[in-house]
């Protein structure tokens, strides 16, 4: 099974994209194409989740939401603690990076879903709500940690403590475009009648996998571009980019099976959510909210290391982990 996961078209297209940049091909998506596809993917996954949820267990949905919030706060704090260990990474960079790891990568999640579907494994739809939920706490934690760092720095240097304007920052955490599309589509999928949804399905479900392949082709190129700047980020951060998903994924498996009672498929998806790092929604928020941090660090980490790690190693690994843990 381990190797098979690498042979699903989505992963193969990711590899193709990475290879294209590796050989310095001039292949390039037109501006806006990836963003457009991204909106489509969020809309589709949201609708699908909504339909599934309309027939779901209400109390389990609530538990999932609560666990999503807990993980969204917990994971970045773990990440921050790791990064600040022995003061290797400065507080601003640590804050910005850990926000990325508390949040999630929709592309990684979708690749994992593709892996399950091709393998014929069942999964719950609750992780889709959790994906929506986990975006916001992570951003808040990142901003709070940076504000604390700012305060400490000002105190140390005797300057007056700069006042962080919270309202525009928090606004971004809650009104982020990805969150709005995802949660909106989720609600629409729940509310719309089955006959109406049937008219939308050919667009949102049938062509979905193919579109995902196109998306991952570009992601592969982006990941490879970022991997080119690995030297700049240094060994400590590279190690973090591999360790953090393993920690997150393990927590995800445990929470999924022991606390939420998910099947192997569902726990595996939660592991992927916990293991993955955002590279679409969170970077611009951190860029604006934590200008002190070095943006190339968090982009290289989440896109250049953790994303390929999850797609290539994380997916088979966490699936194995979930299978074994559930058999205990």
């Amino acid at each position, binding site marked *: 099974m381990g190797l098979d996961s690498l042979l699903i078209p989505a992963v193969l297209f990711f590899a193709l994209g990475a290879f294209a940049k590796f050989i310095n091909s001039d292949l390039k998506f037109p*501006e806006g194409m*990836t*963003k457009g596809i991204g909106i489509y993917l969020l809309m589709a996954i949201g609708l699908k989740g909504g339909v599934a949820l309309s027939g779901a267990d209400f109390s389990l949905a609530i538990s999932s939401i609560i666990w999503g919030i807990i993980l969204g706060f917990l994971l970045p704090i773990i990440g921050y603690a790791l990064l600040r260990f022995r003061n290797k990474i400065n507080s601003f960079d640590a804050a910005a990076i850990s926000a990325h790891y508390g949040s999630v990568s929709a592309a990684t999640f979708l690749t994992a879903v593709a892996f399950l579907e091709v393998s014929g494994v069942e999964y719950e739809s609750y992780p889709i709500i959790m994906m929506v939920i986990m975006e916001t706490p992570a951003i808040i934690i990142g901003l709070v940690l940076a504000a604390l760092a700012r305060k400490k720095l000002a105190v140390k240097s005797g300057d007056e403590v*700069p006042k962080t304007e919270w309202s525009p920052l928090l606004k971004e955490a809650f009104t982020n475009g990805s969150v709005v599309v995802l949660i909106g589509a989720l609600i629409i999928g729940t509310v719309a009648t089955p006959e109406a949804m049937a008219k939308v399905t050919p667009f949102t479900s049938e062509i979905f996998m193919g579109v995902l392949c196109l998306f991952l082709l570009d992601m592969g190129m*982006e990941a490879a*571009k970022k991997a080119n*700047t690995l030297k700049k980020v240094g060994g400590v951060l590279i190690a973090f980019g591999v360790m953090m998903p393993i920690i997150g994924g393990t927590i995800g498996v445990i929470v999924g099976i022991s606390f939420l009672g998910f099947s192997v498929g569902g726990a595996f998806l939660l592991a992927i959510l916990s293991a993955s790092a955002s*590279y*679409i929604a969170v*970077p*611009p*928020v951190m*860029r*604006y909210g934590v*200008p*002190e941090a070095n*943006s*190339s660090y968090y*982009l290289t980490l989440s896109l250049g290391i953790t994303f390929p790690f999850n797609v290539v190693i994380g997916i088979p690994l966490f699936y194995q982990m979930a299978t074994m843990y559930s058999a205990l």
Partner: protein
Amino acid sequence: MAITMSPGKSVQIIVNATFENELIRVLDKVGVTGYTQIDARGNGYSGVQDGHSEGETNILFIVLVASELAEVLIESLIDYIKRGYPIVVYTNDVEVLTTNKYGKPTI
């Protein structure tokens, strides 16, 4: 209608796209009457900005103003630079056509 060109400054401000709305607030506050935005890519101390995502896109603002306002505008950006935002600013002398359909001063 005769051609009337007035001397003024063109202030060019290059910022990351995530700072675009904030800069517009600053422009509004200092009281410029207009500005032009252009999507750009670039390279500098913050590294390559290839335009692939919003966080890696630059915006070039062109702001035509009278000389005094130019100074006020630049002054109001210093604080942001101190806070860590990458902002590149340069100015040059220009002659601005003051005739417009609104009969209001362009600069």
